[in-house]
């Protein structure tokens, strides 16, 4: 049974990586050049940390809402 739970966690991490790459590639690399510039690399790291924070804020807000209003979603 722990295998199913693990797969679920892997799936969750995979989706998070995909979303971060989608959003941060768009924000940090508007015109892809011959290599990642150091500015682009820095932007990616910064953006990733920010996206994970946003993800945490959204999770917390969603949990709070569900708890205060169980039939609400």
């Amino acid at each position: 049974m722990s295998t199913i739970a693990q797969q679920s966690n892997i799936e969750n991490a995979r989706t998070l990586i995909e979303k971060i790459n989608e959003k941060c590639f768009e924000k940090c690399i508007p015109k892809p050049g011959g290599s990642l510039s150091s500015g682009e690399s820095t932007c990616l790291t910064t953006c990733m940390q920010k996206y994970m924070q946003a993800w945490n804020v959204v999770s917390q807000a969603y949990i709070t809402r569900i708890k205060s209003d169980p039939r609400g979603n």
Partner: protein
Amino acid sequence: KDLQTFIENEQQKAKFQANVHSLTDLCWTKCITGKISSTTIDRSEESCLVNCVNRFIDSQKAIVGQLDVMGGRT
């Protein structure tokens, strides 16, 4: 806990996680609009994200409620 309960819990967890991913996607686009310069989310971005989640759920409830009023004629 038996297998049935375990599977239902996992399905609910998967649905919760999928909702968090799509809400983060939507609210990131709505609330994080400037250039990426700081690694931290500022006050106004944070309250935008929290409001975004809550208004999205409000909006969903309003639509479902309205559909009920209309007699479910979809």
